[in-house]
């Protein structure tokens, strides 16, 4: 069942978005729950979904030869999971494993991409909201790379 627009607009990612846009999104959204240890998506597979987390914790992970599965980052409540659907070749770059049970709004990314193409003002609104999150993740990754808690040189 599609989540109601009033429920959707409560999510931090969609806060303040205009009513017509929220209605558009509502038409391609479902409300799903995921158990701990299940996967939202798997690296290398087709990136055809877009997740807004309402509850729970998700680990983004990858396979590192000889070291096994490694967690790159965790993403929690109020966050977006997955943006590989925006850019070709539309394949997931990482796997997303559920750590704490998740409730999420799940969008059909192929439809969403098409809607963004057809209505650039809608597309711009989505991109405007995604870019700060990308920046936030980039900064977080940079800080992680700096090993800020490491022993002083």
């Amino acid at each position, binding site marked *: 069942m599609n989540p109601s627009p009033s429920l959707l607009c409560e999510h931090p990612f969609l806060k303040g978005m205009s009513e017509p846009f929220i209605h558009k999104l509502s038409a391609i959204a479902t409300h799903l729950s995921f158990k701990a240890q299940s996967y939202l998506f798997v690296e290398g597979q087709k990136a055809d979904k877009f997740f807004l987390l309402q509850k729970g*914790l998700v680990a983004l992970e990858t396979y590192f030869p000889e070291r096994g599965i490694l967690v790159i980052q965790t993403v929690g*409540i109020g966050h977006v999971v997955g943006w590989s659907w925006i850019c070709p070749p539309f394949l997931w770059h990482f796997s997303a494993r559920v750590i704490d049970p998740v409730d999420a709004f799940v969008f059909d990314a192929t439809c969403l991409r098409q809607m963004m193409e057809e209505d650039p003002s809608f597309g711009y609104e989505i991109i405007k909201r995604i870019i700060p999150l990308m920046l936030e993740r980039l900064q977080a990754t940079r800080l*992680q790379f700096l*090993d800020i*808690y*490491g022993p002083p040189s």
Partner: protein
Amino acid sequence: MDHLPDFPENPFIPKPFVIEEKKRESPSVFSLYLRPIDQLPFYFLPGQFNMLSAIGGGEAAISIASDPTNPHILIHTLRIVGNVTKALSKLDKNDFVLVRGPYGRGWPIDLVKRKTLILVAGGIGLPPLLPLLYIAQKNKGYFKNLILLYGARTKDDLLFMPLLYKLKAEQIITLHVSVDRPSRDWKGQFGTVTALIPSISFDNKETFVFSCGPEIMMRFMARAFIQKNLPKEHIFFSMERNMKCAIGICGHCQLSPFFICKDGPVFPYEKIEHLLTVEEL
């Protein structure tokens, strides 16, 4: 020397304390539980520091990690990083430690009474914030809400976790913990502590942030809170520099117009923001 503060005694003469207990907190971090030989209570403000030395081993500035409502036991938590902390790490129960202090300006605790206080600690930055947790434990309701965002390099580097889980269970704090380096047995959040900020919600007018940790972490932390519309003047840092005299004379800890030992170590972010990106300061 007209700028020398008016001390009742010679500020360079330390007091002897005896080690009542020594605790290993992580592979490179340990705590010393100290009792004054003269049995006099040792009063301090949360966020202040002492100059500590093993006899003949030099002095180092170490923040106070004990309960300010119990002036009979002084706790210092140290990471072994140099000669002084190495010398202190070799001491054991019943050995003597020399203490000068307390020094510096602490956290502005009156400002945050009945307000939401977010503590952001990174690595060894947790101990200077511990006195605030003890205040919350002893005076329920002192803070409207107390949120601790705590990050460390690995799971094994997380300090005082039994205490933090206890405070969480007693609903004294809301706890968010993150580690920077993956390990298979860690089931919580990954990433630096700043990555925890976007997920928390707060009332901007009634919320204050106190932070201690690597300077770069605090810089990015402040930007993340400002991005969430928290006023700059609600953010406070505890700064660290190489302190020697601890009373604002020698200049070793100078940060442009400030002496960290005397004007800090706690500063409003607003006051030092422009200095944080200046090279070699």
